[in-house]
């Protein structure tokens, strides 16, 4: 199946048209943010202060790259475990976040927030950071440089490969895939 090309920022129509299992190639601006950055973003929202980037329609990538070698755009850049951002994700979605890229399981609360937003959760291949870095053509730190790999960066994707795990209709590729291949024991 050929990957469907999608471009950020995401509209509600695009989000609703995506279904668990869809392979996508993402292009456009995506914001790099992981644990420490999420903590600060949610604190800003709770204080009613502006964020360092426009959240409406935005896609975030749960990722902290390795340092950029001279002449390169970015170091290795694969996804980190999304579950650590579950405490913050519903707040961001209620303020306009439309897409999350990471790897691993989400909580029921996050899935409910995705249905309400609507928003979509994509998985990229964990541990393929050298390969995925080739699909990132722009990289500019825009907030919290003191956090090192946990800073927020404005990345530009060019056909970045991912797969829809949780759509806004309640489907979950992790659950479905596992059911398909599970063997009954004795």
């Amino acid at each position, binding site marked *: 199946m050929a990957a469907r090309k999608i471009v950020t920022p995401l509209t509600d129509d695009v989000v609703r048209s995506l279904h668990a299992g869809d392979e996508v190639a993402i292009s456009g601006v995506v914001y790099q943010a992981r644990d*420490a950055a999420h903590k600060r973003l949610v604190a800003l929202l709770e204080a009613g202060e502006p964020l360092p980037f426009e959240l409406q329609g935005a896609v975030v990538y749960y*990722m*902290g*790259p*390795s*340092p*950029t*070698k001279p002449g*390169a755009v970015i*170091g*290795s*850049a*694969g996804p*980190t*475990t999304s*579950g650590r951002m579950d405490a913050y994700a519903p707040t961001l979605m209620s303020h306009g976040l439309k897409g999350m890229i990471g*790897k*691993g*399981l989400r909580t029921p609360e996050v899935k409910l927030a995705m249905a309400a937003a609507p928003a979509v959760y994509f*998985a990229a*291949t*964990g*541990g*393929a*950071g*050298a*390969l995925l*870095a*080739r699909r990132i053509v722009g990289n500019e730190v825009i907030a919290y440089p003191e*956090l*090192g*790999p946990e800073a927020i960066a404005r990345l530009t994707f060019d056909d970045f490969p991912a*797969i829809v795990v949780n759509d806004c209709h309640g489907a979950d*590729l*992790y659950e*479905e*895939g*596992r*059911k*398909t*291949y*599970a*063997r009954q*024991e004795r």
Partner: protein
Amino acid sequence: MSEAHPSRELDVADVTAAVRELCMTANFDLPADVYGALRAGAQAEESPAGKAIFEQLVENADIARDGRVPICQDTGFAVFFVNLGQDVHLVGGSFDDAVNEGVRRGYADGYLRKSIVAQPAHARANTTDNTPAIVHTTIVPGDEVEITMMAKGGGAENMSSLAMLKPSQGWPGVVAAVVDTVSRAGSNPCPPIVLGVGIGGTIDMVTVLAKKALLREIGSSHPDERIAGMEVELLDRVNALGIGPQGLGGTQTCLAVFIEEMPSHIASMPVAVNVQCHAQRHKRIVL
């Protein structure tokens, strides 16, 4: 001492240089056994999506090796297993300091990510040089120093577990603990995974056994036939879960299960499961 034993001098600067190199090559160059297991997995996997993941992982390993870039952006906690020959006389400074200096240089010069934070429950401030390293030293006969470096990523480490089982739970209890650990981890630890299982000892030792088990070569059988059989059974049970590569569903969830066992207290049956992602990065050198 009645007989003087010749001792060999080794400058700890040589240790620093070796550790620097180990940190980089471990992160750039996947061991041949792991690389082979990924290639074999692409053939064995029944799920088309899972097969594609294996192919991506092989390509990723090629890019990392050829371009000398990290296989994964999480270049890990630097964990060392050292076999220190008792006839070696280390000179020029502290051994542990020399290892940490090697980590400092390797992670800087290799453009590796610094992933260690101090005061984990409070400030979580990055130590900025990926130190401190974790160093397990065993004193052994001989006049050589064998150093094995493991770059241990956080995502898979977080899915690891420890169970202080009742002796009455026996082997079925161990199987349940291992299967439950993998089942709950699902897609989180970047499957296909490798499992290091420690059985016996004390709460501290069982986790070291589990980590040490991860250094075994994929495809190797445990020399003890009984334990080799246990490993085969656990591998089958874990792969029956259907989690598959990256948790997308499939037959190849786990590449290998390695068990290290030692006697336990009459009251205890500790079991530790150390989960390792597919990027099983380790390198060894003998000085």
